[in-house]
């Protein structure tokens, strides 16, 4: 089975992270590292997480987003999410993530 990899692209000071199929603890470790590398390089201020390929997420995924929010709010950056499916949307609502993250319908 082919594992859909996470894709990263940067334009200006915004990074688009097209997430993998299953955002669990196993997959989130390297995603976190890659995003933080770009943040600490000073390139990235805003992040858009694109969930179009993502069918599963748990609290580890919530941790990835919360953690990036904590770093980026110091530089006045924002985090947005897009293409969220029903299951992921429920997790966002229960966890209260929509209080700190913008939901955009399009990139």
């Amino acid at each position, binding site marked *: 089975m082919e594992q859909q990899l996470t894709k990263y692209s940067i334009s200006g000071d915004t990074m688009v992270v097209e997430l993998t199929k299953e955002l669990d603890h*196993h997959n989130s470790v390297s995603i976190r590292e890659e995003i933080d590398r770009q943040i600490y390089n000073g390139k990235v201020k805003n992040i858009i997480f694109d969930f179009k390929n993502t069918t*599963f997420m748990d*609290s580890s995924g919530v941790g*990835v987003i919360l953690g990036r929010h904590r770093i980026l709010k110091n530089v006045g950056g924002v985090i947005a999410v897009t293409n969220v499916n029903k299951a992921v949307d429920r997790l966002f609502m229960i966890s209260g993530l929509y209080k700190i993250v913008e939901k955009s319908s399009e990139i």
Partner: protein
Amino acid sequence: MYRNRMYLEFESKSENEKFARVTVAAFVTRLNPILEELADIKTAVSEAVTNAIVHGYNGGDGTVGLECIIEDNVLTVIVEDKGVGIPDIEKAKKPLYTTKPEQDRSGMGFMFMEVFMDEMEVISQVGKGTKVIMKKAIGAK
């Protein structure tokens, strides 16, 4: 009464988080869960197994036990580790409480297990390990 049971053990490796939740989802198929119920179960299993790996064994070696029992339309999932144990279970269950903020843990694992399953019980002893027992009736709503 209809009854079925399975038990499996796997090593404390993060790639087994997926293996565990997919296995439980396959096991419960015969109860014809709707998609939302399946998503709930997979998330809850993922949380418990991740905790065993990340907290119970601190990312190191160990064996995780996963037992599933179906009794009529009720699924029981038991996740067990023989790791460090939890000193204060009530505190650990509080939303946002985490002992590993540096690893970006959100402290929402137990909360998700409680929300997504009908019942959750945690049995733990420091130095001995932790057992999480979760129940969910399928097709109850």
